[in-house]
């Protein structure tokens, strides 16, 4: 269980316009590259001063590759990060205001309180 790494993926991809586009169009390529190249980057450090131990579980990797925001919610990824990035990728396909946002919520309708724990 690496909620922190899921959040780190969502956070670092969301803030980079090129990565947002790559994640939208080629999720498998982007997730694979990110896990190999970026997962262990300490964000405030220069190259060479990275961590050595961070990796996704198979389940987490598949949820990211599948753009499966329902599974990410279940796994305890921070819902603000998931929502923000997924809006960035898919709101553009809306045919009416808030269409994607409402559908995103509707796909989570089977979750009751308490929601999955997001503490990292």
């Amino acid at each position, binding site marked *: 269980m690496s909620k922190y790494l899921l959040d780190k993926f969502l956070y670092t991809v969301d*803030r980079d316009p090129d990565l947002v586009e790559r994640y939208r169009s080629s999720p498998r390529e982007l997730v694979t590259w990110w896990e190999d190249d970026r997962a262990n980057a*300490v964000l405030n450090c220069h190259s060479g001063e990275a961590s050595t131990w961070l990796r996704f579980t198979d389940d987490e990797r598949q949820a990211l590759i599948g753009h499966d925001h329902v599974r990410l*919610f279940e796994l305890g990824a921070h819902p603000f990060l998931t929502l923000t990035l997924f809006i*960035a990728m898919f709101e553009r396909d809306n045919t009416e205001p*808030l269409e994607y946002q409402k559908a995103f919520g509707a796909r*989570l309708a089977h979750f009751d309180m308490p929601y999955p724990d997001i503490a990292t």
Partner: protein
Amino acid sequence: MASIVAVIASTHHPFYYKASTATGEDRPPFADEWERKILAFRETLTRANPDVLVMVGSDHFHQLWLDNMPQFLVGKAPFYDANWYNEEREFGLPRMLLKGQEDLSAHILRNGLDEGFDLAFSNELRIDHSITCPIITLRPEADLPIVPIYTNIFAPPLPQPSRFVKLGETIRQIVEQWPSHLRVAIIGTGHLSLELGGPRQFGPHGPDPEFDRRAVEWIASGDLDNCLREVTLDSLHSPGNATHGFMDFMLMMGVAGAGAKADYVDTLDLFHTMEAYFTWYPTQGGVR
């Protein structure tokens, strides 16, 4: 000593800027009423004629991240750039540059530490919409120097609600003891019931109108006793998964003082959230 000329608490809806500047077919049907309410709310700050703004908000995973997460952080810098790429992208927010009031930042940090709050600090802080939204609604000229104060309402483990209240009370005391002739307004933004990224998001109202009704009553009447009795870190999950932002309202109730009735109260029932606007006009050492 400095005088606190206004205490203001509100929601920070990031879509206000876009809604209020939209024209023609792009202008949403609720924009006119929203803008009227904001202009009336803005007047409550304008008439207080402040020189300095202490701005309480919460970074939304912009500069502050899980590898190094402070609970309470005070900015101390001569300038603050503001708004982030993903806020431009999603909300159409403009880039901004605000001046800092470093003397007051230093005073709050020194005295906050001495009063038992181990405040983090930042000498280079890019602020986000939790602080720029109230600048846009209350002081769009963005001409007054600020002291930004960030709270963690976002990344558990969070401080207890009572700690937010206590910090608000402490900020009030510290600002009142600032050796300055300047007029200070303390402004903080949070949320009522709110759901983000969960099944109850983007409904026709906020996710829990009953919580919102009670919350507005607590804030408007300064009812910290009942608010603290009913609100816990656990209970805040129930009105909506982002409702911990209500603790910034509790912080502002601490600034205003227990039992302090707000001099100005307004609300707006929007899709997704209940918006709420409160202003107090304290007098030195007591409540008017």
